[in-house]
């Protein structure tokens, strides 16, 4: 009890130091300034906190990795996802704070708007969450350690046909780019594997949580084998699972599948038993058994308390992003402000992440990682857990592989 | 007799079952000084609203100098020379007295639509407005916000605005209403000094005002013309005394 409080205090102090480090740069070790662009206010605030914690945990667990360098994080609020604030943040971080690296970006439009600045600034820019596939084509200094919706949804489409032997599917998706990517990814793979998507239903926008009843009712009337759903992780996910149960679709023989976003780690317990048996594909879940994740989780709860929101894919995206930055710092012997060299040092970089082995694709500068086909099961502890059914290794972003639309690499 | 300015033929207005105005034939001669009296709810204000085009009539016609304006909208009738004051002040309370008058004059002069030169350059309008204010003894408060004036003088501004429209026909809806008797004379003086050729129709409860001012009087009762004549005749009319004057005299005390 008291021990934990102390630990928490210590952590808090540490954070305060790194934060205030920006002002008092009395660094004996070489200081590496990282400009962090995240939505600390507004709809994205929750994600920003999860990502801050992810980075903090990496620096905590790998303190001696970082030596002799000193990472200083300068936080900027990207506010509402309209691109403007993000772009100004990037400009000022580069021109005033003279940061060596840019990082962050929860929402794709913010990364997209900042792209010209990044290119002009000639600094490494690590995308730690934004998932729209073509972003990395917009600047040669972008490196992504998060994901694209194509990765999880493509694998889900493939597995739905091959593992679950589904013939027909209905897709319900939040009507914004990630949702459309998820639809495209799932459809492409599912139909390539012989299935058929018989209906695609846009189900409201990303912000206000819609009532999914009418959308799912329509899906139910279509009588597919599986209903593939993408919604932004959070309240919408809870609503999806509850509505699925409420409409008795399971009884009607329709399996609910999706990307991991519909069973986010921080909502899973709240969903209750109705979530049991859900099958999803994602690159991370809090129950992964690899040693890095064990250590990560242990330290996480030690720092933020046993009841803290569990770590999730946004946390690992930031965790891996910080790892990438540290690698680049060491590989360039501290000359990380040479963006081209920093990017070069990360092409083909491999790392053992809490989400399993990851690599940066030398061609696309995008992440290559495992995707896990998970099933929600009830553990002996009475809590819900994710059980890995299938591990699909080295998954690349199919949108770029297939060169679809703006994903096609600009030559 | 001088020719007719404003005329109504069988003018009626119904609100559902309520017949606010029914079948009124009425003539207002050029330069007339005509009073419209009647108990509350007799339809006097509705009648004014029909004349000014705020309300469309249910039946009947309105003619201005012989021309049918029944279907002409309010703004147009103003341009044709019908101006009115309201029973309750309708002023630009946030603006200065001078601005209030200039507003009306700019509309009359057709300047108000123009966008690309400052209003301040229309010195002709401003000077004219100042002139009017002087004749109405408002010049000393020309700079004051209307909202800062005592009610009596606000009524005067109400009058000034309509005079500023240079009307041929002026409809005054209880111009002295709500003005403490100590101040009411400033209104009446102003009304008396109105240009000769304007045809004036005044709704008034205060009999002293009516008899002092009007050359002709029309009595309205429950939407219809009840009697018409010179003040003397009306005063002498027994029926009018019975059903109207009694309560009106009572009305003067809190009028």
């Amino acid at each position, binding site marked *: 009890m008291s021990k934990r409080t102390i630990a928490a205090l210590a952590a808090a102090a540490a954070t305060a130091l790194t934060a205030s480090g920006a002002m008092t740069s009395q660094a004996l070790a070489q200081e590496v300034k990282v400009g962090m662009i995240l939505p600390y*206010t507004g709809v994205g605030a929750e994600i920003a906190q999860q990502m801050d914690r992810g980075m903090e945990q990496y620096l905590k667990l790998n303190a001696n990795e970082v030596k002799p360098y000193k990472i200083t994080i300068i936080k900027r609020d990207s506010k509402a996802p309209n691109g403007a604030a993000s772009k100004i943040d990037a400009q000022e971080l580069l021109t005033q704070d003279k940061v060596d690296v840019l990082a962050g970006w929860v929402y794709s439009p913010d990364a997209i708007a900042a792209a010209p600045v990044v*290119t002009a600034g000639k600094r490494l820019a690590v995308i730690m969450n934004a998932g729209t596939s073509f972003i990395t084509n917009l600047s040669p200094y972008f490196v992504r350690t998060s994901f694209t919706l194509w990765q999880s949804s493509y694998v889900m489409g493939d597995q739905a046909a091959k593992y679950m032997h589904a013939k027909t599917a209905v897709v319900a998706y939040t009507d914004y780019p990630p949702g459309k990517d998820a639809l495209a990814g799932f459809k492409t793979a599912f139909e390539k594997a012989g299935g058929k998507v018989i209906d695609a239903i846009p189900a409201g926008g990303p912000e206000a949580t819609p009532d999914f009843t009418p959308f799912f009712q329509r899906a139910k009337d279509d009588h597919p084998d599986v209903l593939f759903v993408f919604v932004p992780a959070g309240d919408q996910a809870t609503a999806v699972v509850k509505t699925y149960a409420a409409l008795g679709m399971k009884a009607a023989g329709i399996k609910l599948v999706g990307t991991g976003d519909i069973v986010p780690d921080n909502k899973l317990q709240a969903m209750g038993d109705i979530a049991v048996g859900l099958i999803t594909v994602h690159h991370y879940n809090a129950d992964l058994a690899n040693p890095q994740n064990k250590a990560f989780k242990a330290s996480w709860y030690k720092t933020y308390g046993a009841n803290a929101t569990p770590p999730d894919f946004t946390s690992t995206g930031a965790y891996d992003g910080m790892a990438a930055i540290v690698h680049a710092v060491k590989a360039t012997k501290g000359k990380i402000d040479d963006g081209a060299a920093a990017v070069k040092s990360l092409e083909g970089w491999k790392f053992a992440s809490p989400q399993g082995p990851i690599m940066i694709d030398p061609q696309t500068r995008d992440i290559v990682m495992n995707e896990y086909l998970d099933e929600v099961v009830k553990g002996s502890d009475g809590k819900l857990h994710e059980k890995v059914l299938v591990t699909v290794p080295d998954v690349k972003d199919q949108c770029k592989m297939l060169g679809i639309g703006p994903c096609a690499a600009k030559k | 007799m001088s020719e007719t300015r404003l005329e109504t033929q069988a003018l009626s207005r119904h609100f559902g079952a309520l017949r606010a105005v029914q079948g009124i034939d009425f003539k207002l001669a050029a330069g007339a000084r005509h009073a419209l009296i009647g108990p509350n709810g007799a339809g006097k204000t509705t009648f004014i609203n029909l004349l*000014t085009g705020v309300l469309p009539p249910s039946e009947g016609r309105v003619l201005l100098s012989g021309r049918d304006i029944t279907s002409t909208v309010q703004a147009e009738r103003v341009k044709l020379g019908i101006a009115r004051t309201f029973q309750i002040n309708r002023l630009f309370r946030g*603006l200065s007295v001078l601005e209030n008058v200039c507003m009306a004059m700019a509309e009359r002069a057709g300047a108000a639509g123009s966008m690309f030169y400052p*209003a301040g350059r229309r010195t002709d309008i401003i000077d004219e407005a100042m002139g009017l204010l002087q004749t109405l003894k408002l010049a000393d408060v020309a700079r004051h916000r209307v909202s800062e004036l005592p009610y009596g003088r606000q009524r005067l501004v109400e009058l000034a605005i309509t005079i500023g429209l240079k009307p041929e026909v002026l409809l005054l809806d209880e111009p002295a209403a709500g003005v403490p008797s100590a101040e009411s004379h400033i209104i009446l003086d102003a009304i008396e000094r109105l240009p000769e050729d304007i045809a004036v129709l005044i709704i008034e409860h205060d009999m002293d005002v009516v008899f002092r001012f009007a050359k002709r009087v029309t009595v309205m009762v429950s939407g219809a013309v009840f009697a018409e004549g010179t003040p003397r005749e009306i005063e002498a009319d027994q029926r009018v005394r019975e059903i109207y004057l009694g309560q009106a005299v009572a009305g003067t005390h809190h009028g």
Partner: protein
Amino acid sequence: MSVVAPPASAAAPTAGIESAAARMLMRRHRVRWWETLPWLAGIAFYFAAPDYLGFGCDLLVTILFALSLDLALGYAGIITLGHAAFFGVGAYTIGMLATYNVWTEPITSLLLAAIAAGAVGFLSGLVLLRTTGLTLLMLTLCTMTLLYEAANMGAAYTGGFDGLPSLPIGPVFGVFEFNPLYADTQYLFALAVLFGCFVFVRTLVYSPFGQSLTGIRENVLRMHAIGSPVRRRLIVCYTISAALAGIAGALSAQTTAFVNLAVLGLDRAATVLIVLILGGYGRLYGAFIGAVVYLALEHFLAQLYPTAWQLGLGLLLVLISLFARNGILGLGETLWRRFGPRRDTP
């Protein structure tokens, strides 16, 4: 609009103290010395804070947007919560023209944006300006949201939520390129555009037309009674205001080389409303004060307390609304009246 030529200024007006009032009216439109300050400040900012020019552009755009709203809300009293509709139309005009390489010359594109936004303003004005108050507020809001949804449905062309990336914007006068890292060209360009629009708006509000708008705000029934074509005036005013908002949106698209759905969002519409009320509406310079205070506070508070800055902002808004009538300028005027040099009238 009948444009009556001003008669050769007549001789000195009626003599005596009274004519002070007349003189006040005749001089009101003249430029005062302090009116040069915002522009001097704007130029000084360019040299003083070369690293803040991106923020500076955002500021100038917001001022212009608030100015456009002031014309409709502050002068004509048209209460709208949907002004971002026109901002968005302007921004997307630029976005579309640039993305599909139709036209990238910045100045003419601005005019096209103004025309597009003005047209939308005119059409919606025809339908909506019959209503007032909360009804009008909701109708403008819903109209804006409809455009938002339409833009989302047409995501294939508008880029939707992700937006249209890296817009190619032509050099100004074919010479001065926009600079993505230090937004210096953008800033000067935006400053010039703002100045032009401001001069236009200033002329407008001091013109007889502008006066009649004030009249409509102060007492619409009286305006009818003095023969003013109220509805036409409102529609004209709304159209002009929309066109200016369109220019603001276009300017934001040009200076950020980016446009996404957010330009049509309630966020944007509400913020500009707050900015204007905070500064003081119906005042011309309220737009400037409001934008500077609001954005500066937001920007620098957010740098100090990325997660908690909204608290400070909220407190400011509450305090201003409680202790100032009509925003910061209103407060200033009250104080001036109380402590400033004595005058016989406010």
